[in-house]
């Protein structure tokens, strides 16, 4: 418990450091940050509108500390400013309209890749040199080394156009009204298959190899030899003794990836015209939409920190040793 509280404290400090940085960065830019930020839309805005925006951003002539407090207050109320490229939509609505799809695609493909990859790694290491171990790692590395773009296009061409099994783009059929009906969920799932499949294909090899290697190192441990000497069944040794220990580094890597899911999958979103944060981020950077860029980065940071905290919680459950250290 003490361990978790300490970690939580650490993440809060990191979070605070991150928003502070976010606050100072535009102010450290030479010249008037507001004019810079609004350079694009300035022409369409009346001076009083600009003043109101300055007010909203806290970029007023108030003393710096007051601006800082205002800024933090805004962040905690979920107010991250107005998107410039999609003026006058608030940044928070831009993000929240996309994040659901990003989470759906990212989390689904990550979880499938992690579970399947680790399972393959466990079995490959356990039956070292056998079929699975000699065929899968090279195959998956081969697939994973294709340029993602090419692979995604190929999948789209084969399964979408030639075979026609899956839809070509978007997260659900155009014109369908989102609802909690079975047909809508099935439609969304159907649209999810190809984008998720391509992500799983390119990432699963890494998970498998990572798990396989730690697992091989773990099987050399004395407690595995002892478990074998105890006459336990192979399955129990493999999962309870070897994999339980070999899994620990994988959990950390999973936490990292989970956090970055929020950043979206730009290439996937592009190829499959799938809605998501990745495209928004690219867009905002190209359009010099500072508020949106900052808002997305802040969201990513928060997600990474939260995911890491989640991993800490899981880790404590899985590894009794960290409970004391």
């Amino acid at each position: 418990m003490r361990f978790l509280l300490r970690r939580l404290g650490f993440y809060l400090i990191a979070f605070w450091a991150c928003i502070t940085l976010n606050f100072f960065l535009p102010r450290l830019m030479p010249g008037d940050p507001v004019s810079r930020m609004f350079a694009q839309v300035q022409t369409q805005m009346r001076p009083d509108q600009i003043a109101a925006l300055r007010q909203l951003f806290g970029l007023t002539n108030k003393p710096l500390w007051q601006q800082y407090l205002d800024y933090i207050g805004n962040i905690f109320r979920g107010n991250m400013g107005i998107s410039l490229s999609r003026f006058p939509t608030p940044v928070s609505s831009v993000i929240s309209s996309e994040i659901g799809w990003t989470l759906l695609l990212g989390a689904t493909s990550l979880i499938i890749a992690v579970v399947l990859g680790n399972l393959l790694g466990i079995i490959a290491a356990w039956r070292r040199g056998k079929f699975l171990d000699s065929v899968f790692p090279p195959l998956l590395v081969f697939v994973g080394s294709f340029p993602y773009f090419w692979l995604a296009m190929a999948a789209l061409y084969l399964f979408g156009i030639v075979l026609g099994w899956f839809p070509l783009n978007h997260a659900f059929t155009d014109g369908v009204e989102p609802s909690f009906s079975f047909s809508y969920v099935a439609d969304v799932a159907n649209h999810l298959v190809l984008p998720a499949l391509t992500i799983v294909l390119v990432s699963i090899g890494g998970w498998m190899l990572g798990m396989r290697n730690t697992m091989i190192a773990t099987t050399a441990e004395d407690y595995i030899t002892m478990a074998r000497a105890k006459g336990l069944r192979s399955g129990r040794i493999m999962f309870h003794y070897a994999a339980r220990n070999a899994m620990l580094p994988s959990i950390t890597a999973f936490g990292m990836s989970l956090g970055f899911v929020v950043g979206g999958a730009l290439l996937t979103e592009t190829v499959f015209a799938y809605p998501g944060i990745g495209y928004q981020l690219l867009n905002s950077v190209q359009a010099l939409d500072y508020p949106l860029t900052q808002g997305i980065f802040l969201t990513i940071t928060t997600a990474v920190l939260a995911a890491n905290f989640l991993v800490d919680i899981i880790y404590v459950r899985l590894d009794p040793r960290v409970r004391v250290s």
Partner: protein
Amino acid sequence: MSTILQGGPHAGPRAASNPVLSIKDLRVSYTTGLGTVNAVDGVSLDIGAGEIFGLAGESGCGKSTIANAVMRLLQAPAKITAGSIDLNQCNVLTLSDEELRRTRWRDMSMVFQSAMNAMNPVMTIGEQIMDVFTTHEKMPKKEARERAAHLLSLVDIKADRLKSYPHQLSGGMRQRVVIAIALALNPSLLIMDEPTTALDVVVQRDIMAQIKELQQSLGFSVLFITHDISLMVELSHRMAVMYAGRLVEVAPSNVLLDDPLHPYTTALMNAFPPLSGPRTELLGLPDAPPTSAGRPSGCSFHPRCPLAMDACRIQDPVLRPAAENHDAACLLVPEFVVPPERLAQ
């Protein structure tokens, strides 16, 4: 039958006629990029029921290799090239995987050289004891927990420790838990491969005393491996001294202590003062034991032997009777011939 073979379990260099463990001409080699090491090179030994048999020798002489061969835990690059290992009259080397799995721990169990790391760090002590019962005896969880608690009480550990993880125990406790696990199914043979080397001397003596007590009440046989000869003499009934993959002397422990015949045994004894703690250099023995570089001609010990003669460089001594209850492999030791009047009996 000769009188030597008729003695009680602890009477002679050979065990009683129905040994619990019988190893015959065991040969194990490791083949690596550096060449082939014959780590065990024709070892035969018998361990009788209820007997504590000690196996002593320098580091690298092949003690653990024998232990792992008996448990059939050897993995590549190790290879058993010849010999047989009979446990209760049943050849361990020809068992199928499933038969082997059932035999392990029920008939023979082992306390590992590195017992400190022998427990799974992410499972409680209790789970690691209980899975022996649930696997081998199909026992319900609750009963297994009771048996586990009882087992811990045998080694003076409180039952509430069942919920502890290995890292929460001291080294001595961990070692006692490992011993308790080894006794879970009342095996007929317990192999202990340097079970106490990582512990301080006081704890070491404590644990050894406890093992002797348990052995007397439960009656299992022990193959006890160490390079601490003084500890071994105290504990074991009979012992063998091993050098470069071979047994060079076998005798009841007190006989070996009072009257060592092989120069290597003498050197090994001198190397260990009675209360030895950390490993010390073998006094008066230059160089190291032969390794992959190959075995010297003649007696493998001759390059380091203070008493080596010309013949030792040429002739390879075999293990043979040197006295009524004493075997040695040394050209300096005359072969013991059973007196004809005894043979006539």
